[in-house]
C-alpha cells in the first residue's frame, strides 16, 4: 500500500504542487513572523547584554529624578570604581529654517565618557565641552546636519544656544529617543539645557574584586527603597522585557493574519484532496476490488497528506527565513528602531512550530476527503462514467447553517445595541466569524443562484461558451463553494478594512472641518513640558496686529483637579452643537458642559456644578448649555468664557490659536505674514487644514497598505485554490472538452469558456465577501462610542469585484491553455 501511495504521489505531483504552494506560503508567513521577531529579540538581547557588561549596578528613580547629592553619595560608596549620572529631558533642536524640528521636541541627553560610556558613534566623537553637541543619526540625516555644522538648540528658558556638532550617534533601540530624536551634551551642559533637577539613571562601575551582586547590596543598604537598584544583568533583562512587550503585540497581529492565511490554505487543501479522491474513485474501487480494506484506503490518503504536508512545511520554513529577512531589512530601511545587523535567527521553536502547523493543517484538511474515499464501493470500478455530483442541502447542514448564521447575527446585534467599547468591537468581530462559518456551511446552496446572477451578463454576451461556463461553474456546488469561500475570506477582510478606514477617515476629516473653520491653527510643540504644551500668551495679540489676518481666536485650556476646562474661543465659527440650553447665555458664573460630563454628574441645564480652580478656589457654576459629543476638541468637559477662565486659572498661554486670512483669496500672503510673526517663537507650530488632512490621509493610507499587504497572502493562496480547482476540473472534463472541440468549438472558445468559469467563480466569491464585509464593517463602526459616519467606499468595493473577477481569469490561464492544447483524439481516448 505504501508503494501504491508513493507512486500515486509521483503521478499527481503536478496537481499536488499548487496545494503544497498554499501550505508553503501559509507556513512561510507564520514562520517568517517568528524569524523576524526572534531576530529582533535576539538583536535586542545582544545589545543589552553588551551594555550590561559595562555597568555593574544601575540605579533608577521610582518617580522624581535622582538628585546630585545622591550621585555624590553613590560615588563615595565602598566598591564603587565610578559613577555616571544620565540626564534626559527636552532640548528642542531648531532645523535649518529656524523652526523647532518635528512636532515633538528633541530629547536632550547627557553623553557619558569613560568606562561607563555606552554610546555608539556613527561618526565624530563625544562632546568635549559646553560648546559641543552630538545628534542622533536619524535627525542628522533628515535635518541635514553634518559633523562640523553649527546647530541651534533651545534651552529651558527657550533661549537659542549654539553648539558645534562634533559627532553623530546611534540611539540604537531606545524607542523614545528614536521617536523624538536626541541631541547630546556633556553632563553639565545637559543639566543646564534641559533644566533637569537630577538624573534619570545612575550607572556604577565596580572596583576590582567586587561582584555586581555585592555592590547591589551595598547600594541598597545606602539608598533604601526610594530607588530601583539592578545589576547590569538585571537591567539588560528588564530592557529586553520592555522591548518584548512591543514585540508581542507585533507577533499577535502578524499571527492573526498568518492564521487567516493558514485557514484559507486549509480550505484549498481540503478541496484538492476532495477532488483528487473523486477523480480516483475508480482507482480506489479497483484497489478495493483486489482486496484493499477501507482502513488501507484511508491510511493511504492520509499518508499522502502527511508527505505533502511535511515537504511543503519544510519549504515554508525556507520561505519564512526569506520573508523574515526581507521584513527586517524593510523595517530598518524605514528607520524603525530594530537591531539592523542582527543575524537571522531560526530557532528550534520556529522549526517545530512551522512543521507542526503545516503538517497538522494538511492532515486535518485531508481527513474528510480520506473518509469519503473509504466509502467508494468496489463496484464503482466497473462504472464507465463518473457520476455527476448532485447536491441537496441535508437537514443537518440546514440546521447547523441556520444556527451559525443566527448566532453570528445575534452576537453582533448584542455587540451593537448592548455592549460598547473594545468588548463590543471584539464581540461584533466574533459574531462576524461565526456568521462566516455559517456562510461556509450554507455555501453550496448559495452557489447556484449566485453564479446564475454573476453569470447573467457572461451568459448573454459570450454565447455558447458563456452558457456552458456558467453551467460548469455551478455544476459541483460543494467544490465551487469551497473554492470561492477561500477568496471570500480575503475579500471580506479587505472590504471590512476599507469600510472602517474610509469611514474613520471621513469622520476625522469631517471633524477636521469643524476643527478648522479657519485657515490655520497654531499649537505648541509637544514634549517640552509635562502636561499640555502651551503657546506664549502674547502670540494672539501679535497676530491680531497683522494687517493680513482677519479673525484670531484662542482656546485656553487647563487640566486641573482631574477635569479639563476650556475657554470659548470668540467667533461664530467656534460654536459647537448644543443639545440643550443655549451658548448665548454663557456669561460670568456659568458653564457649558459636554454631554458626557453632564450625564456623569447627573445634571442638566439650570443646575449648579462645583469646579476647583487654581485662582478662585472652589466656585459654583450654573449650567447654561449641554454640548453635543462627537467632535474631537470643541466639547471639552467644561467650557467657560475667556474672562471667567482668566479669573479661575490666571493668565496662561493659549493651547491653540486659530487664524483666518482677512482676504480669503490671499491665504498664502497671510500665511507668510503669520510665519514671520512666529519667527520669535520657534516652538510654535503652524498648520493648515490641508496639511493636517494630508497627514491623516498619509497615516490612513499607510495603515491600509500594510493591512492589504498582509491580507494579500491569503488572497494569493485563494487564487492558487481557484487555479487548482480549475485545473483539476479541466482534467476531469478532458473528454468533454474534446467532444466540444470535435463539435466545432475553437481553441480560443474553449479557453474563453474556462476563463469565464473562473471569472464567475471569482465574482461570486467577491460578491459574498463584499456584502459581508460591508455589513460587518457597519457593525464594527456601531460599536465605536464616538459618533462615526458610515461610508461605503463604492469605488474600492467595485474595484475588489473587478479585481477578483480578473484574478479568477488569471488563475485560469494555465489550466485553460492546457485544455485548449490537448489533442482531441488523445482526449477522446482517455478514460
Amino acid at each position, binding site marked *: 500500500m505504501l508503494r501504491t501511495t508513493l507512486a500515486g504521489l509521483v503521478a499527481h505531483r503536478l496537481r499536488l504542487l499548487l496545494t503544497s504552494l498554499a501550505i508553503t506560503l501559509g507556513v512561510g508567513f507564520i514562520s517568517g513572523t517568528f524569524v523576524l521577531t526572534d531576530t529582533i529579540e535576539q538583536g535586542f538581547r545582544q545589545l543589552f547584554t553588551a551594555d550590561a557588561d559595562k555597568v555593574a549596578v544601575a540605579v533608577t528613580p521610582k518617580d522624581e529624578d535622582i538628585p546630585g547629592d545622591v550621585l555624590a553619595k553613590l560615588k563615595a560608596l565602598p566598591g564603587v570604581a565610578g559613577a555616571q549620572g544620565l540626564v534626559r529631558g527636552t532640548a528642542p533642536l531648531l532645523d535649518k529654517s529656524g523652526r523647532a524640528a518635528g512636532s515633538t521636541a528633541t530629547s536632550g541627553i547627557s553623553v557619558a565618557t569613560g568606562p561607563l560610556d555606552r554610546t555608539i558613534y556613527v561618526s565624530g566623537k563625544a562632546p568635549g565641552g559646553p560648546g559641543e553637541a552630538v545628534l542622533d543619526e536619524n535627525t542628522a540625516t533628515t535635518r541635514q546636519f553634518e559633523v562640523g555644522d553649527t546647530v541651534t538648540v533651545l534651552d529651558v528658558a527657550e533661549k537659542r544656544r549654539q553648539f558645534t556638532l562634533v559627532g553623530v550617534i546611534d540611539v540604537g533601540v531606545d524607542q523614545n529617543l528614536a521617536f523624538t530624536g536626541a541631541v547630546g551634551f556633556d553632563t553639565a551642559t545637559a543639566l543646564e539645557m534641559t533644566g533637569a533637577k537630577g538624573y534619570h539613571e545612575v550607572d556604577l562601575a565596580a572596583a576590582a574584586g567586587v561582584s555586581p551582586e555585592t555592590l547591589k547590596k551595598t547600594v541598597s543598604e545606602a539608598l533604601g527603597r526610594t530607588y530601583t537598584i539592578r545589576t547590569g544583568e538585571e537591567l539588560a533583562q528588564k530592557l529586553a522585557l520592555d522591548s518584548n512587550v512591543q514585540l508581542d503585540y507585533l507577533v499577535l497581529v502578524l499571527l492573526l493574519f498568518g492564521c487567516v492565511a493558514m485557514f484559507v490554505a486549509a480550505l484549498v487543501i481540503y478541496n484538492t484532496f476532495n477532488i483528487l479522491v473523486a477523480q480516483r474513485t475508480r482507482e480506489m474501487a479497483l484497489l478495493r476490488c483486489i482486496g484493499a480494506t477501507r482502513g488501507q484506503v484511508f491510511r493511504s490518503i492520509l499518508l499522502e497528506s502527511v508527505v505533502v504536508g511535511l515537504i511543503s512545511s519544510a519549504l515554508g520554513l525556507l520561505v519564512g527565513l526569506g520573508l523574515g529577512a526581507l521584513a527586517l531589512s524593510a523595517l530598518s530601511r524605514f528607520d524603525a528602531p530594530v537591531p539592523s545587523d542582527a543575524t537571522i535567527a531560526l530557532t528550534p521553536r520556529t522549526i517545530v512550530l512551522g512543521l507542526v502547523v503545516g503538517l497538522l493543517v494538511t492532515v486535518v484538511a485531508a481527513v474528510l476527503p480520506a473518509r469519503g474515499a473509504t466509502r467508494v464501493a468496489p463496484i464503482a470500478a466497473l462504472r464507465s462514467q463518473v457520476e455527476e455530483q448532485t447536491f441537496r442541502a441535508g437537514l443537518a447542514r440546514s440546521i447547523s447553517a441556520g444556527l451559525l448564521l443566527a448566532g453570528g447575527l445575534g452576537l453582533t446585534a448584542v455587540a451593537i445595541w448592548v455592549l460598547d467599547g473594545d468588548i463590543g468591537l471584539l464581540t461584533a468581530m466574533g459574531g462576524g466569524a461565526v456568521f462566516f462559518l455559517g456562510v461556509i456551511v450554507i455555501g453550496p446552496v448559495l452557489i447556484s443562484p449566485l453564479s446564475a446572477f454573476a453569470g447573467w451578463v457572461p451568459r448573454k454576451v459570450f454565447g*455558447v461558451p458563456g452558457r456552458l461556463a456558467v*453551467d460548469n461553474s455551478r*455544476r459541483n456546488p460543494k467544490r465551487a463553494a469551497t473554492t470561492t469561500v477561500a477568496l471570500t475570506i480575503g475579500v471580506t477582510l479587505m472590504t471590512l478594512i476599507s469600510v472602517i478606514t474610509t469611514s474613520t477617515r471621513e469622520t476625522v476629516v469631517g471633524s477636521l472641518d469643524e476643527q478648522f473653520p479657519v485657515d490655520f491653527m497654531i499649537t505648541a510643540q509637544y514634549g517640552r513640558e509635562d502636561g499640555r504644551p502651551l503657546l506664549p500668551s502674547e502670540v494672539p495679540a501679535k497676530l491680531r496686529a497683522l494687517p493680513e489676518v482677519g479673525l484670531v481666536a484662542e482656546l485656553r485650556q487647563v487640566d486641573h483637579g482631574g477635569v479639563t476646562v476650556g475657554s470659548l474661543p470668540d467667533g461664530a465659527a467656534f460654536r459647537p452643537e448644543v443639545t440643550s440650553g443655549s451658548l448665548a447665555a454663557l456669561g460670568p458664573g456659568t458653564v457649558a458642559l459636554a454631554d458626557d460630563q453632564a450625564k456623569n454628574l447627573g445634571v442638566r441645564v439650570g443646575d449648579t456644578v462645583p469646579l476647583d480652580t487654581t485662582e478662585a478656589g472652589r466656585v459654583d457654576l450654573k449650567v447654561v448649555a449641554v454640548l453635543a459629543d462627537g467632535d474631537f476638541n470643541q466639547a471639552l468637559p467644561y467650557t467657560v468664557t475667556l474672562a471667567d477662565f482668566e479669573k479661575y486659572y490666571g493668565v496662561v498661554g493659549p493651547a491653540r490659536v486659530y487664524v483666518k486670512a482677512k482676504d480669503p483669496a490671499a491665504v498664502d500672503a497671510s500665511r507668510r505674514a503669520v510665519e514671520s510673526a512666529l519667527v520669535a517663537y520657534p516652538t510654535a507650530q503652524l498648520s493648515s487644514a490641508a496639511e493636517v488632512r494630508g497627514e491623516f490621509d498619509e497615516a490612513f493610507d499607510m495603515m491600509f497598505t500594510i493591512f492589504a499587504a498582509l491580507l494579500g497572502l491569503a488572497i494569493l493562496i485563494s487564487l492558487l485554490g481557484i487555479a487548482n480547482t480549475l485545473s483539476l476540473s479541466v482534467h476531469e472534463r478532458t473528454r468533454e472538452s474534446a467532444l*466540444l*472541440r470535435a*463539435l*466545432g468549438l475553437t*481553441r480560443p472558445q474553449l479557453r474563453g469558456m474556462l476563463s469565464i468559469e473562473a471569472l464567475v467563480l471569482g465574482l461570486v466569491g467577491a460578491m459574498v465577501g463584499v456584502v459581508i464585509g460591508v455589513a460587518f464593517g457597519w457593525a464594527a463602526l456601531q460599536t465605536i462610542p464616538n459618533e462615526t459616519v458610515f461610508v461605503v467606499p463604492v469605488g474600492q468595493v467595485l474595484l475588489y469585484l473587478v479585481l477578483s473577477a480578473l484574478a479568477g481569469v488569471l488563475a485560469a490561464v494555465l489550466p485553460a491553455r492546457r485544455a485548449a492544447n490537448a489533442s482531441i483524439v488523445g482526449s*477522446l481516448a482517455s478514460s
Partner: protein
Amino acid sequence: MTMTTDVRAAVVARGLSKTYGQGDAAVHALRGIDVSFATGAFTAIMGPSGSGKSTLMHCLAGLDTVSSGHVHIGDADITTLSDKQLTLLRRERIGFVFQAFNLLPTLTAEQNIRLPLEIAGRQADQVLMDRVVETVGLRDRLSHKPSQLSGGQQQRVAVARALVSKPQVIFADEPTGNLDSRSGAEVLSFLRRSVRELGQTIVMVTHDPVAASYADRVVFLRDGLLVSEVTQPTPQSVHDMLLKLEA
C-alpha cells in the same frame, strides 16, 4: 477489386497514411489508403482490432493530422487547413457519434441536440428538428439530463444531434459498441432511415457484422490498408469476409 470513384463523393481520401512515433517505435497505422464515400450512402468500415479503423476515421474527420496524403470533404482539402479552419469546417459540415461519452452532462437532451447549431450560431431547422426528434422517439425525454437516460437513448440523442445540423457527413465510431442488441438495432435502423429518408451520408466504424449489414457498403481494413469491400452486405457475407481476412 475496383476502387469506387464517385463524382458525387462526400468524402475522398487519396494516398492517406498515418505513422505514430518515430524510428524503431514507429507504428504505421495507415499505409496509403485511397477511398471515397458516396453522398447519401451508409458505409461501414470493418477490420480486425488494431487495423486502423479509428485512425482512418479521425483522419477523415479532421480530428487528427495525417502523415501524408489528402482528404477532401466536399470541395475542401482538409489536410491543408489550419486548426481554426478545421474547427469551423467540423462545425459546418461534419457530425459525430462516438462510442461513449457523447453528451455534455450539464445539458438536457434537447440542449445537447441543439449544441452544434448554437456553437455555429445557426438557427435550427424546426421542421427537421421535429422530424428527427419524432424519428428518434425521444419527444418525452427532451428535458432529461444524460444521466437520466439509458445508454441506447443517449446514443439516439447523439445521433439526433449529428442529424439536425444537416452535416455533409456523419462519422460514427462504434456507435453501438456499448449497447445491447436491441438498443443497438434501434440506433442502427435509425441511422439507416436517416440515410434513406433524409439523404444523409454516414461513415460508421464497427466490429459487429450485424451492425455492418445495416450499411449500403462495407470496406475492410487490415494492417492499415484497404483490402476489400462488400456492397449490399448481409451479416453472413460480412462474417465470411472477416473470417477470410483473419485467416
